[in-house]
């Protein structure tokens, strides 16, 4: 890094340290950012990315200690600015797009008002006009209409864009975007990235925060990899992503499932020898859905066709990936298959026997054959139960929650999902996201099911953790010959895990077939759009030698 900072430099951070009550969460971070450039902060959850970003606006948080040799924004020392000056700077010099846009806008006020609030110095009458311009600029269709709606009336993508609009309201020379694309459908994600690229070209200095390397690969000029509050690798995006020097970076890269053939390992966790259990090729139809439809009555009297004539077959030991954007009916389908929602028409059969048509009393005895994993594992655990109680309950088929009798099974399950025995006594709320999902999987395995329904099982997880879970699921499938219905909006993930895919939109399955066929030679336009939007890492070839 050059000692002198050219006028082009908008951010200049040297040895930034941020501490909260007890410990430092950011220790010695340094970087600079020039106009029209994009610096990406990568790193696992909790590594200190957001705090760093917030510190740049003097918003590190209450009772936070921020120290730095230098913390300059457009040449002004943030640490020395008065409260008033800081407020003046925010929004004017630096725009911040907060993490999780879904809750970053006041749910009680129209987004238009939220954006207008940022428009200082612009006469009131001109504001509305300006708000519409901004929304349009952020790629929001029908800005007039959207401006009048509240955040919770907008889709995730629209919220994210509205948030960006409010951040660029005074077109600041610096824009900080914290996880702007997480939890968004690939198509939407693509649009957001386009928007950011546009801003960058327009000369905005962009500080992009993400844990999704693929995303970064498309936008960033320089990458700083953060871990435990420190930058472990820093350099031009191309080099860092193609030839990472730091093992942690390698790990991150290896974990990206996109473009990784089925069966290749994402984590460094050793699996069983590939030949241990041969992938069954026999096509035993384990679970079949025929012409499922489900319509929901909306409060306004109209109907919403959540699932529309959906049919598919799931084979023993194989994975059917169900991909589609939010609201396309994936979860509803899953719920029907699980016998939680009755289809209006159509039927689900298990081993050719009736399933969805059975009365609950008759279905109950065979329920253990179909397990489920959810996007939000925490919510699926009784908050009063410890891990071992949860597992005892599952292992005993509900006869008891007392671990005493089931020690062996519990330990077996914990081991199978790679959790230390120590977790047995703890409550899920005290576990990390990855550990929770493992517990959920263990619980699902306990009754020795034939089918696992996985609804967005990794969407809420870090790349690294996601990698481990995906590998785990793969191992288990081989071990027990499980059939998976794997639901996700992430093409990369689906592609990596499934033998067959079904692409879903507006409640219908528009295309289905063997994964490679569907995803390399898509026939349906929607699938094509999906693929085009999916970000990929440049130089896939370069990653071969990363694998140990």
């Amino acid at each position, binding site marked *: 890094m050059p000692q002198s900072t050219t006028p082009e430099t908008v951010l200049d951070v040297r040895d930034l340290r941020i501490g909260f009550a007890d410990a430092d969460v950011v220790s010695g971070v340094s970087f600079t950012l020039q106009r029209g450039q994009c610096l990406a902060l990568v790193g696992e959850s909790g590594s200190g990315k957001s705090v760093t970003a917030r510190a740049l606006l003097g918003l590190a948080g209450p009772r936070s200690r921020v120290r730095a040799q230098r913390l300059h924004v457009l040449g002004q020392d943030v640490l020395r600015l008065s409260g008033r000056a800081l407020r003046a700077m925010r*929004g004017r010099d630096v725009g911040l797009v*907060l993490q999780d846009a879904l809750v970053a806008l006041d*749910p009680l006020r129209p987004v238009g008002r939220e954006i207008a609030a940022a428009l200082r110095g612009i006469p009131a009458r001109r504001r509305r006009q300006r708000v519409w311009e901004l929304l349009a600029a952020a790629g929001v269709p029908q800005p007039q209409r959207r401006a009048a709606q*509240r955040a919770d009336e907008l889709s995730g993508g629209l919220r994210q864009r509205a*948030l960006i609009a409010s951040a660029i309201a005074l077109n600041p020379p610096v824009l900080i975007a914290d996880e702007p694309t997480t939890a968004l459908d690939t198509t939407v994600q693509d649009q957001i990235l386009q928007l950011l690229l546009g801003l960058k070209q327009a000369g905005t200095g962009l500080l992009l925060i993400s844990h999704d390397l693929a995303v970064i690969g498309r936008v960033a000029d320089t990458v700083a990899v953060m871990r435990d509050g420190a930058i472990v690798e820093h350099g031009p995006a191309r080099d860092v992503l193609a030839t990472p020097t730091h093992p942690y970076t390698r790990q991150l890269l290896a974990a990206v499932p996109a473009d990784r053939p089925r069966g290749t390992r994402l984590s460094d966790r050793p699996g069983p020898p590939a030949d241990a259990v041969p992938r069954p090729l026999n096509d035993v139809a384990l679970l079949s859905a025929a012409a499922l439809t489900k319509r929901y009555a909306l409060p306004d009297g109209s109907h919403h066709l959540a699932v529309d004539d959906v049919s598919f077959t799931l084979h023993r030991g194989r994975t059917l990936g169900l991909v589609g954007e939010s609201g396309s009916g994936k979860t509803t389908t899953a719920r029907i298959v699980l016998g939680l929602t009755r289809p209006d028409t159509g039927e689900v059969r298990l081993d050719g026997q009736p399933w969805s048509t059975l009365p609950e009393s008759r279905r109950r005895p065979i329920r253990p054959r179909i397990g489920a994993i959810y996007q939000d594992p925490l919510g699926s655990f009784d908050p009063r139960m410890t891990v071992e109680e949860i597992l005892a309950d599952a292992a005993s088929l509900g006869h008891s929650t007392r671990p005493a009798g089931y020690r062996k099974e519990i330990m077996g399950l914990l081991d199978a999902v790679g959790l230390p025995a120590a977790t047995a006594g703890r409550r899920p709320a005290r576990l990390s996201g990855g550990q929770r999902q493992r517990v959920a999987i263990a619980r699902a395995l306990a009754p020795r099911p034939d089918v696992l329904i996985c609804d967005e099982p990794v969407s809420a997880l870090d790349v690294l953790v996601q990698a481990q879970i995906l590998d785990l699921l793969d191992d288990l499938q081989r071990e027990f010959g499980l059939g998976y219905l794997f639901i996700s909006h992430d093409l990369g993930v689906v592609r990596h895990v499934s033998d067959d895919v079904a692409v879903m939109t507006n409640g219908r399955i528009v295309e289905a077939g063997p994964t490679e066929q569907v995803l390399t030679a898509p026939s349906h336009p929607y699938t094509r759009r999906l693929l085009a939007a999916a970000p990929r890492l440049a130089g896939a070839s370069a990653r071969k030698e990363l694998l140990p």
Partner: protein
Amino acid sequence: MSRLALRVLGAVFVLWAVVTLTFFGTQAIPGDPAEAVLGGPGSRSTAAQLAQIRAQYGFDRPLWVRYLDELRHLAQGDLGVSYALKTPVTTLVGQTIGATLTLAGLSLVVAWAVAVVVAVAATRESRIGAALASLLEITAVAVPHFWLGSMLILVFSVGLGWLPPISTPGVAGLVLPVLSLALPLAGFLGQLMRESFLAALDAPFTLSARARGESETRVRLVHALRHAALPAISLSGWAFGSLISGAVVVEALFARPGLGRTLLSAVLAGDAPVITGVVLVVATVYLVLTVVTEAADRLADPRLRSASGQRAGAPAW
């Protein structure tokens, strides 16, 4: 339209049930209604007098007949005549309801004002301040109305001689009663608001408001306060009920005419028509108020207006 009809029907049902419960409740009160009419068991009333009254008021008819009769009269908006005072209950209620509603209404307003101030002043920075505030709130909630009232009288009437200890038509006479009703409620609302206010201050959208360069006051008044108010608003109907309860005590203490006092004396005298009348009226007011509260709720929280109907979209913080 049909929703409105349903609502009205529900209200009618509630009132009917209230009447029924009260009717049989009053029947269970020991004592002879005929004697109540003759000025209580203390009256040296003769058998003849009692018999005459029983016949006149139809106390000798079977219970269910009287019940149906009662319903018929109420349905016609006739609340009957007080046993003790021989005045129509409608007149009695008419004379007193204004006073009580004023008292309760003002108390509600004052309680809100105090609670809002407490909430907006709240911070996470000074833990002592927070602890002190919450201690004050808890104490306020735990202080019985009559005790607080006596204290206020002691200080402001006897001590400083600023305010009259017993009610006067003017505003001055309202101050102490209102305070002794409002402060406990303020404590309750304060707790409620302060917590949700602080929660709102931690919410991401306040952070992004700050990041937009909005001033602290704007963040507090425009964003956080509205969120903080929501739970308190939804509880205002209930709060009003508790104020009516308090009014029974406060009216006795400050010698204010009002529904509470009417009810108290009616209960003591076994004056069934008055009891039923007052309870019915209070219930009606409550129902009206719940409607108002819901409206206010929807006003303050647009999410309730949107299709989903409940706070579905509410963020998880």
